[in-house]
């Protein structure tokens, strides 16, 4: 038989099973996120420079033989994207190891 819930009981941390499921979910999402960031970066050509919002394209004018550059709108992720995405994923993953401080009125 369940006893009625008091306000003190309401502020208690959730049962261990609920907390574990939340942690597993976030850890999984972090790993998937990191893998996605790495896959996207590698699929776009392993750019080891800065991310590019527009890509320079070299052209040659046939009469003057001048080489000139035009820009094509395209996102090419760079090392900053890889580092940022990985750091965010690791931070989320690490956050799941932080324990919520238990609130126990009897200890005060």
């Amino acid at each position: 038989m369940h006893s009625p819930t008091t306000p003190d009981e309401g502020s208690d941390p959730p049962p261990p099973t609920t907390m574990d499921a939340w942690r597993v979910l976030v850890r999984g999402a972090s790993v998937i996120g990191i893998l996605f960031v790495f896959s996207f970066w590698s699929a776009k050509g392993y750019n080891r420079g800065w991310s590019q919002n527009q890509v320079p394209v070299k052209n040659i004018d046939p009469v003057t033989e001048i080489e000139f550059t035009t820009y094509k709108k395209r996102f090419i992720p760079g090392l900053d994207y890889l580092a940022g995405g990985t750091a965010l994923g690791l931070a989320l993953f690490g956050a799941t190891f932080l324990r919520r401080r238990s609130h126990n009125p009897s200890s005060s």
Partner: protein
Amino acid sequence: MSAIPTTLRSIAFAGFTIVSAIASPKTFDLQDPKGVNAIQFKLDSILEPIAGTAGAITGTVTFDPAAIEATNGKVSAAAASIVVPNAKMNEHLLGASWVDAAKHPEISFAFTSLTDVKSAGANKWTATAAGQFSLKGVTKEITVPVSLTYLEGQFGTRLNKPELGGDLLVVRGEFSVARGDYGIKPGESEDKVAPVIQLTFALVGGAPKS
């Protein structure tokens, strides 16, 4: 009797006109209808060099194939036309601490003559242009090694309208400036961005047949 001197006078006048037309300097407009003209720049930096272009080129070069030393002109690039592949970096470059495109909208180089002129083949020359380079409101005297290629009768051909006639002049060059000399973060962040900016240009000017 008087018909012969009149004919001679006419021939002499026609000859003088032709010689004048050939020998007179031509003004080449650097505002290229095909949009090829640009100044490329490069600064060494961490991760990779910062490389981009400044388009929107305007200006003129006055050139006479019979007097290369007398070549003079002014080339200007709109500061706001600076483009690098990274949007955030582009924003920084146009900002007040870098080129400050809002306050100083023009980057220019003006020269009044050429020195050390040497032939480099048919209608090709190398030379040194001494003039004033302006960036971010600061103007300094610099010398730029240039090469010139005169493409006679190619103006119309390039535009797929050979009937237009006219000539082209291609000017190429490469030089470098210290960014600190032009008020661009003097002495700052030199471990991240090189203090020297390398500039390369290849410009074509057109002189339609007059």
